[in-house]
């Protein structure tokens, strides 16, 4: 157990300044990911912590005609309180699967996205919705698609340095969508994963499709999605089978049980395009 030096940032500029002066400092907001694996008497934390939970700029959420923008320190409970009219259904369903209501009062969207040990519930939904995250450092802000958080090895690849400050979600129309959580719900285990699917049609043609699945490993292939786009709807059962075949190699890194569940969820989603 290590006693930490805790720095409370009063605003964003202060947080960035602390981060610049102390590279490698651990950013702390809700703390649910950091503490969830620690069953002992005391908490084990790194030598230095940067508390961002009270930074006003990170606690705001706003809606424009084109997108929803959420501060990284907005809690999951606060996010759900925005209501179904503001929250894209796929994201609402995803974050409802996070922990228990009491845990959702602590857990933040930023923390859920930037977990390094595994993908948490929000990533597949945000990947399907083309979500962007803002990373800030003293040099300025960079917007990055959440897909870039999926490393080549299928594991989370959260950039080191900089502060995740905002999440921006385009409010595009999706004609069909589905989200399913498998495995234990309230507490992430190696068997827990989330499947997300969204599709849009234009004049009977599949115009956009997104398929993402993530637990300890994340799956998404824009190349496979592109190969489906442009087909006439409804898909024939032969087409659906051939698309599912294409995804089999993508699911190879998954443990057998999860690969089977992914296959059956994919079949269900493709079924939505076949009827």
């Amino acid at each position, binding site marked *: *157990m*290590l*006693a*930490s*030096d*805790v720095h*409370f940032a009063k605003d964003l500029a202060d947080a960035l300044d602390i981060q610049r002066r102390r590279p490698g400092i651990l950013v*702390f907001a809700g*703390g*649910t990911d950091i*503490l*969830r*694996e*620690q*069953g*002992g*008497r*005391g*908490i*084990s*934390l790194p030598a230095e*912590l940067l*508390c961002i*939970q009270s930074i006003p700029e990170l606690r705001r959420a706003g809606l424009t005609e084109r997108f929803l923008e959420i501060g990284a320190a907005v*809690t999951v*409970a606060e996010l759900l*309180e925005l209501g179904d009219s503001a929250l894209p259904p796929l994201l609402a369903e995803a974050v409802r699967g996070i*922990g*228990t*209501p*009491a*845990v959702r*009062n*602590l857990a933040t969207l930023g923390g859920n996205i930037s977990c390094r040990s595994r993908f948490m519930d929000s990533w597949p939904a945000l990947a399907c919705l083309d979500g962007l995250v803002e990373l800030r450092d003293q040099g300025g802000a960079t917007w990055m698609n959440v897909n870039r958080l999926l490393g080549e090895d299928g594991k989370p690849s959260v950039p080191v340095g900089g502060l995740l400050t905002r999440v921006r979600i385009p409010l595009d129309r999706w004609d069909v969508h589905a989200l399913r959580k498998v495995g234990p719900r*309230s*507490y992430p285990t190696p068997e827990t994963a989330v499947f997300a699917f969204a599709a849009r049609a234009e004049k009977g043609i599949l115009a956009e499709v997104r398929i993402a699945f993530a637990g300890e490993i994340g799956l998404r292939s824009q190349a496979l999605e592109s190969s489906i786009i442009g087909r006439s709807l409804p898909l024939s059962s032969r087409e659906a089978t051939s698309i599912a075949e294409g995804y089999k190699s993508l699911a190879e890194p998954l443990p057998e049980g999860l690969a089977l569940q992914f296959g059956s969820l994919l079949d269900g989603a493709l079924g939505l395009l076949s009827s």
Partner: protein
Amino acid sequence: MTVSFILNGEDVSAKARSVDRLSDLLREAFGLLGVRSDCRCGRCGRCLVFLDGRLVPSCIVPAFSVRGKEVVTIEGFAQTEDYREMVEGFAAAGVETCGFCEAPKIMAAAALLERTPRPLPREILEHTSSAPCRCTDPEAIVKAVQAVAELRARRLYRRAGQ
């Protein structure tokens, strides 16, 4: 470090190390034994407290992070009219929870009713899942919380008429 916060309505300060959990601080520095610290991972719900009005598992809250905030434990909540209504509603519905989950279930139900005065059964079951326990039939919990909602609605109606 010294952490100053409001505890059950009073300004307090306590010495806390960065390794201390809020649940342990409340039990050891303030003798609030209604806050249990069993699973230490936020799952069992026996350590639930209100933090700035929000129900949270205090075992996954580092003590340092409550600086300047307001904490209400079951001991503080038990002094309120809301708590008395909860107990009355649970009794009216014939619900007897066990000693482990009674306080957290009551706090979870109170947190729900604060934001949703007429909750649906699925909302009640979801919110009371913050304090999971097999001692009571879930349907009985739904009836109890609905009974509390009714009592609360009547109280508010009486107040509005005064």
